[in-house]
């Protein structure tokens, strides 16, 4: 009898456990977007929206910053930002997407949209934008690349865009003080560069005049295009595995490593390596080691993000007062062309997608559109008018008292951004660089110099692909990347003679390089025809 009671009790408990489950109460409230606002704010009724984005450790996101309060005052939207540490953002985002539990607004990248766009998790935006997003529609009219973000002819994310600002790109940066000291002319072409670096090596035998960071492919992505071929590592430049867009060869995508021009690039690198001009650790330098070599005088030249020249020069001057690592104009390549990619103007991989389960989609789109309006973008970039900044005749100025407040922090600019809640790393789809420029005037002169260089080229976005094309690209890309990764360093370091390069080029082209280029070109043509 006792055993039976025992068993019955156990069953009852298990049943209760299995039956426990919460049901969401489905409340029907009138939508805030339905009636036009009469209170002067964007919405008459209060709405709460949850936003999820990553957080950089330099700029912790506050839950009750000035920007959030001001947004509430102006729009009646209570913004709840869920900030996930950047190091862990990918994992969390993937889980939430896979279980369809995303918040109202979530920061995603282009790959997420292309993988999950058609699955119905994200709100399709085109129709909503047409009806209730005048500001964003105006931006779409001026920036045609936005159309390339569409998946199956439907837009699923609002890209983070630059309202005011300039970008730089990879650029040649050299020790100008050493050139002056040894009476060497500033190199105007890659052949001259080789002569100059060789001379520097003779003068400083312990040095490795040229260095690179973040691996071989990254180094190739900076050098190949200016030198006449190309090797893209990001969707903004062509692809993530070596395809690149060439405006000088017919406005089409080419698989770099399979071409003769690329062979020349590798031959040059091999020569630089053999003669001790290229740092033998080029393939394994971390960003820290790379900056260490340049700031301690062991290397004199790099081809990378030219904004580093400023901080490196400051560092060098601690030991050598007149040192100068400065950017020089784009150099001529063997075909006589000067060319170099800018970075992308806008953040095409930081898109705000809206959950399809959100209670009032039209309101969310209207709110996102507000963030692209002058008033909304002003708040998200500068704060509260009069309290944090002034705007006289279109001239934006952050108040000196505000800048003063954060002057003693380790990083005054980001301390200000964090406290106010402004800036790219907070909730700011339409970014304005002026707060940054106000505190860093030196950067502005570099920007101007780079932007004035006629060799700089704006990159183009990848065209949109169909699901089949995406699958095929993934397949081919794995094969091609594996082969490439295994062999390329052998050629640069001389472990394999350049005479075998042609066979290698043939192999990667057959394994998928050619087919990838044709897929990209076909997709581009299809996109051009329909737009």
């Amino acid at each position, binding site marked *: 009898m006792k*055993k039976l009671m*025992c*068993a019955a009790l*156990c069953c009852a408990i298990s049943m209760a456990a299995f039956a*426990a*489950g*919460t049901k969401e109460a489905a409340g029907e409230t009138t939508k805030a977007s339905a009636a036009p606002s009469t209170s002067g704010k964007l919405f008459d009724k209060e709405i709460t929206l949850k936003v999820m984005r990553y*957080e*950089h*450790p*330099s700029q*912790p*996101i506050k*839950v009750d910053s000035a920007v959030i309060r001001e947004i509430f005052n102006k729009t009646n939207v209570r913004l709840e930002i*869920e*900030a*996930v*540490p*950047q*190091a*862990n953002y990918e*994992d*969390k985002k993937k*889980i939430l997407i*896979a*279980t369809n*539990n995303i918040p109202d607004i979530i920061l995603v990248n282009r790959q997420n949209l292309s993988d999950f766009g058609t699955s119905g998790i994200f709100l399709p935006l085109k129709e909503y934008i047409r009806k209730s997003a005048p500001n964003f529609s105006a931006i779409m009219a001026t920036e045609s690349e936005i159309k390339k973000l569409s998946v199956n002819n439907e837009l699923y994310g609002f890209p983070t865009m630059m309202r005011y600002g300039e*970008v*730089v790109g990879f650029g040649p940066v050299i020790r100008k003080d050493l050139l002056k000291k040894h009476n060497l002319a500033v190199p105007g072409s890659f052949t001259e560069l080789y002569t100059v670096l060789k001379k520097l090596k003779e003068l400083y035998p312990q040095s490795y005049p040229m260095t690179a960071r*973040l691996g071989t492919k*990254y180094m190739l992505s900076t050098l190949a295009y200016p030198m006449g071929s190309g090797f893209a590592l990001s969707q903004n430049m062509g692809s993530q595995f070596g395809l690149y867009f060439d405006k000088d060869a017919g406005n089409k995508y080419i698989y770099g490593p399979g071409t003769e021009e690329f062979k020349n690039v590798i031959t040059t690198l091999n020569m630089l390596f053999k003669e001790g001009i290229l740092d033998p650790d080029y393939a394994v330098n*971390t*960003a*820290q080691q790379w900056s*260490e070599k340049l700031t*301690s005088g062991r290397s004199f030249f790099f081809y990378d*993000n030219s*904004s*580093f020249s*400023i*901080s490196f020069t*400051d560092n060098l001057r601690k030991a050598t007062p007149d040192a100068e690592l400065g950017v020089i104009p784009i150099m001529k390549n063997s075909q006589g062309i000067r060319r170099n990619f800018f*970075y*992308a103007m806008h953040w095409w991989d930081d898109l705000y997608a809206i959950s399809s389960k959100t209670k009032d989609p039209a309101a969310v789109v209207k709110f996102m559109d507000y963030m692209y309006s002058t008033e909304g973008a002003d708040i998200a970039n500068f704060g509260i008018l009069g309290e944090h900044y002034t705007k006289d005749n279109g001239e934006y100025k952050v108040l000196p008292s505000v800048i003063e407040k954060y002057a003693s922090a*380790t*990083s*005054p*600019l*980001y301390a200000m951004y964090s406290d106010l809640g402004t800036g*790219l*790393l907070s909730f700011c789809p339409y970014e304005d660089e002026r707060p*940054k420029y106000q505190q*860093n005037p030196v*950067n502005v002169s570099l920007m101007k110099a780079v932007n004035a260089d006629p060799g700089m080229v704006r990159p183009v976005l990848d065209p949109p692909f169909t699901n089949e094309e995406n699958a095929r690209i993934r397949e081919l890309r794995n094969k091609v990347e594996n082969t490439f990764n295994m062999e390329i360093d052998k050629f640069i370091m001389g472990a394999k003679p350049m005479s075998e390069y042609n066979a290698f080029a043939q192999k990667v082209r057959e394994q998928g390089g050619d087919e990838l280029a044709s897929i990209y070109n076909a997709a581009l043509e299809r996109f051009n025809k329909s737009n």
Partner: protein
Amino acid sequence: MPWKKRFNGWNAFISFILILLGAAAIYPMIYIFVISISDGNLVMAGKVFLYPRGINFKAYQIVFESPDFLRSYANTLLYTFTGTLINLGATILYAYPLSRRDFYGRTFFTAMIAFTMFFSGGLIPSYLVVKQFGLINTMWALIFPVAINTWYMIIMRTFFQSIPDTIQESAHIDGANDLVILLKIIIPLSVPIIATMILFYAVYHWNSFFSALIYLNEKKKYPVQIILRNIVIAGELERNNNSVGADTNFITVATNFKYAVIIISTLPILAVYPFIQKYFTKGVMVGAIKG
């Protein structure tokens, strides 16, 4: 002891080898500590080996200045304490009945929990289950799904089995029911195994960051490991933000800073360990010998 202590060449040689091995084992920890209190520039130049140079606590200062840090430290202490308590309670309550031969559903419950040791639904079903129970964004999501670790439970069961039946039977004759036997006889006799389990579970909770990452949505609930991991890895993420990454205003994460972070996150466990160690004389091996 049958052996006499002798000092001869052979012993000296063995001692020498052991000292070398001990030094090799402890040097990395000393190195990390030394770097964390040394001057950043000397560290970058590679000049710090055995002893700290340019002693300053700037790295620790930066970490403690981080606003969320102290709160997340408190969170971790809370989760570890509550979690370990619940873990112990659940494990003991599950292990004791399984150790009694007269328990009716013994095979069934053993099989049920052993099954979970080999098979698991995976990440997404777990997330959905936790969501269904309404535990998302609460601290219970970190505690209940992992309340019983099968392996530790089996160790504990084996230990309980080694307590002689006669004691339990005599208590029963004196009028004690099962609960009283458990509380007044079994647990006092099981101090070694309980101490071991406390350490295992506490370390698990202290280090757990992935479940906190996916189940918690608010920064004020994050444990310290998430914040610290972000600080340590931050330097490697600069490449992804092209225009922002070269920003000279970013706080560059120097090596000594990372090491300060490591020290902060392991210090409590290191501090507690020596005190629990005295219980270990019988602790871990205890489940191995029956009867």
